[in-house]
């Protein structure tokens, strides 16, 4: 579904992404890990066409990202920080995105009801807390039942109930054969969701393996222990990545 070939991107002298090649398939829930500044957000933004790659190509369902903007109809994106025009109400934001995707008529409003946003529709974005804004972002990402979900720190700032609800939703969508690309610093949040792990460091792809393979290699069950083991052991098996 998503094919990335030798993607490179620098900001000035800083190399944010260095020769990354990846193939992501439908039905995977890929967790994107790495320290701050390792290029996770840049990779996501390159896929969305927000960052223009320096070298390399990205194809999504056969569409080259650089040339064709229509591929974005198949992507639901939840940004790390959702900020919206101050005086718009939740209702207006949702209606605007619906109107932009005018050709799409079937909406998945499960999260809107689940989060209880349907009772706060006329509140302005300025008056919302960070967590509620995050909920709005999540609702927008899931509204059109896209084939690909790109979620940047989706659970950051959400209360436990909302966070659990979102995780259940993600699991269901994955079971429905969608591709999910997710970054999170909270490894326990990825437990039971992630099927594959991508580890980036200094813009380089260090690791791309299935969770089962990693569990077998390290002998650990819990995801955070697996990752800790992998990092301690100097990231073994980086050569036989799945890409």
């Amino acid at each position, binding site marked *: 579904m998503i094919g990335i070939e030798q993607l490179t991107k620098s900001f000035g002298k800083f190399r944010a992404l260095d020769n990354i090649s990846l193939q992501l398939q439908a039905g995977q829930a890929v967790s994107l890990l790495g320290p701050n500044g390792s290029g996770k957000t840049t990779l996501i*933004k390159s896929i969305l066409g927000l960052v223009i790659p320096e070298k390399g190509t990205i194809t999504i369902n056969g569409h080259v990202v650089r040339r064709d903007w229509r591929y974005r109809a198949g992507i639901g994106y939840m940004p790390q920080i959702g900020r919206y025009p101050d005086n718009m109400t939740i209702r207006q934001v949702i209606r605007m995105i619906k109107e932009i995707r005018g050709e799409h008529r079937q909406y998945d409003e499960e999260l809107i009801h689940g989060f209880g946003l349907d009772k706060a529709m006329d509140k302005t974005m300025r008056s919302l807390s960070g967590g509620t804004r995050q909920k709005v972002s999540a609702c927008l990402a899931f509204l059109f039942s896209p084939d690909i979900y790109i979620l940047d720190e989706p659970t950051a700032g959400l209360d436990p109930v909302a966070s659990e609800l979102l995780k259940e939703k993600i699991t269901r969508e994955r079971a429905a054969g969608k591709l999910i690309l997710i970054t999170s610093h909270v490894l326990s949040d990825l437990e039971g969701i992630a099927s594959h792990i991508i580890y980036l460091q200094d813009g380089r792809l260090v690791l791309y393996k299935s969770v089962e393979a990693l569990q077998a290699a390290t002998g650990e069950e819990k995801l955070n222990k697996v990752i800790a083991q992998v990092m301690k052991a100097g990231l073994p098996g980086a050569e036989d990545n799945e890409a």
Partner: protein
Amino acid sequence: MKTIIKYVLLDLFKNKIILIYTLLLAVLAISLLSLDDNPSKGLLSLLNVTLLFVPVITILFATIYFFNAVEFTELLLSQPIRRERVILAEYAGVALPLCAAYAAGVGLPLLFIVSGTQSLVLVLTGVLLTLVFSSLALLIFVTSKDKTRGIGIAIVAALFFTLLFDGLLIGFIYAFSDYPIDQAVVGMIALNPVDLGRVLMLLQLDVAVLMGYSGALFKKFLGSAAGSVFSAVCMLFWVIVPLLLSVRIFRKKDL
């Protein structure tokens, strides 16, 4: 594109700064026009207020708005929509309320106190200046890396066009006063949208000759009608060129 314009407008018409700006212009317009029985003088004062405040307020407000809307722009760009449309819609969404604020704040009092061609030209001048400086704000937004730097550049740009440019022009005129530079000066005025706005209005007011070098030159070289058309067309260029340049740069901008 219409959708985005519509929702940005919905947002900005509830914006307090736009509201205060409109009221301030209205108060200034009413008080300046009722100070003197001679409407020409009132219009002249109003012109000076316009030339001083409209560029500064427009460029600052628009630059800050564009930078504050970065995350919103990202959200829009992650939808299936062309980049060009997003940026042009945001421009229209910001420029239209500012134009409306000027048209309502200055235009309505004028309509009741001194309606006529001269008032119409003044409103047109203010609206054109708003469009020009929103366009420049967009250019600043797409070329600067962060908000602080962007606002800094916006302030410098506003000061340059409202104050510094005329100083340089006068310096130029004094330095080369022994040479036939009249036409060169007319050409130089075209480089400053604020001066173009001044000329556009002064040519209507029959005080052109009294109002310094630039007005006199325009009157002399171009006559009233041709001069007005020339300065209006130049101002339109000041709207379109930065706008097209911004779209070009925005196509390749990383967010």
